[in-house]
């Protein structure tokens, strides 16, 4: 089974990076994780990856103190006429 995850610099590292006091390469940090594929993103800030579930903890430890690792999420736009919204009309 594969996990799709987002690896992103944590708050402190993000600020350091934005201030120019440090630069990070998430790609280099996770290069050694077996089975891992980078799907999208910018290695200097956040990447979406796919990895075998058995190596998820390995991934977390590889970026510990530098990055957050979480499940991928999709955000929806709040304006398109949505069937779910229209369905509530008759409640």
């Amino acid at each position, binding site marked *: 089974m594969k996990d799709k995850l987002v690896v992103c610099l944590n708050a402190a590292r993000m600020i350091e990076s934005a201030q120019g006091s440090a630069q990070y390469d998430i790609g280099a940090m996770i290069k050694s994780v077996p089975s891992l594929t980078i799907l*999208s993103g910018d290695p200097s800030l956040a990447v979406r990856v796919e990895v075998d579930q058995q190596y998820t903890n390995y991934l977390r430890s590889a970026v510990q103190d530098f990055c957050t690792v979480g499940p991928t999420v999709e955000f929806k736009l709040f*304006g398109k006429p949505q069937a779910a919204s229209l369905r509530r*009309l008759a409640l």
Partner: protein
Amino acid sequence: MGGDEINFIVQDSRGNPVRADVLARVRTLGGDELYLDAVSDGEGLATFLLPPLSQIEYVVAASRQPGFWNLFAEDVDDFEELVLQSLPAIDEPAWWLECLGIDSENPDRGKGIKIGVVDGDFRNGAGLEHVVQLMATEQPEPPDGWGHGEAVCRILADRDARVGRLLSIAPAAQVVFIDASNENDTLNEDAATIAIRRLVVEEKVDIINLSWGNASPNDAIRDVLNLAAEFGVTVVAATGNEGFQSQPMYPASDRNCIGVGALGLDKWGPVGTLVEWYRKRSNDVKRQGNVPRIGQVYAWCDSTIGAGVHVLAPGVGIFVQRNGGNSFELSGTSFASPMVCGLLAVALAADKQYLGLPRSRGRTNYVRQAFKSMCRPVGISKRYQGSGVPSAP
């Protein structure tokens, strides 16, 4: 076993066909609810195949062509024609400008303030030529209807000579648009995080508008919103259209965001329109209030409630005009959020103390305090309205 075919003709008051999304709620013989949708064709024909002996309870038609109110119709058993009513001509400042205390006679409102927008589906055109578009995704061909990101930008800063004055909040503000949408018309958090950082660090915007979200908090977005606050950037976000049963979505509920719910005007929207139906559905004393300049208002029935709704702003029956022509009529917290974002641009452009502050957490805190002083309760329950409705100082 075959079903019953029901045909609707979607047309304007003169009998011309109109292309529209049509949604029908159907009650089956067994009492189940079904939701069917169709798109009317070039002849205005929308066809539904119903299960045997079922009944249509109501129909909603949302035009893909500008110039019409969205329609709501009940008791449509014998109904074959869905007549969309024309929107009124725009010859005076819109109620949302009045509601927010915007001086429509000032063409320079928002000048000098840079707004970032992270969204999807931006289509440039007259009035939006000034918008800087980054990380654009390919649009294979212009689809009909309206674009979500386009609508947000037009509410913020449409510079069409007439529309800018009468409909748009901060036409002189600079806008930088980043398309972070994917093929599903949603946003991935890695793309959204990268876009927000770019707006903060490289583009050095002053305010960011986010008209999207998800029920669950997200680490990456939380951390980049913290970055924005540290760099003096104020973020405004829509609380979501999940209705009064739901909590505000994330990131609107983040401590570094101003979460905006949607407000409707009682006297807005003729009989037979979706806006009228929204008004009826919002008919609860806790949701009713009054804004002195415009009269009775209501918290929109599809706006989420609770902690995270910081304010309400106009978001029901909003006109978004394209290329100086007819308008689309839109509802959603997506459109309430740029109202507040634009209002902040107008206020901050005239705030000398703000303009002199360094880009730091102190500037973000200053804006939050200044914004709080712009908000007034309007008589709606606090869970629905937060601090109330903002108005330009």
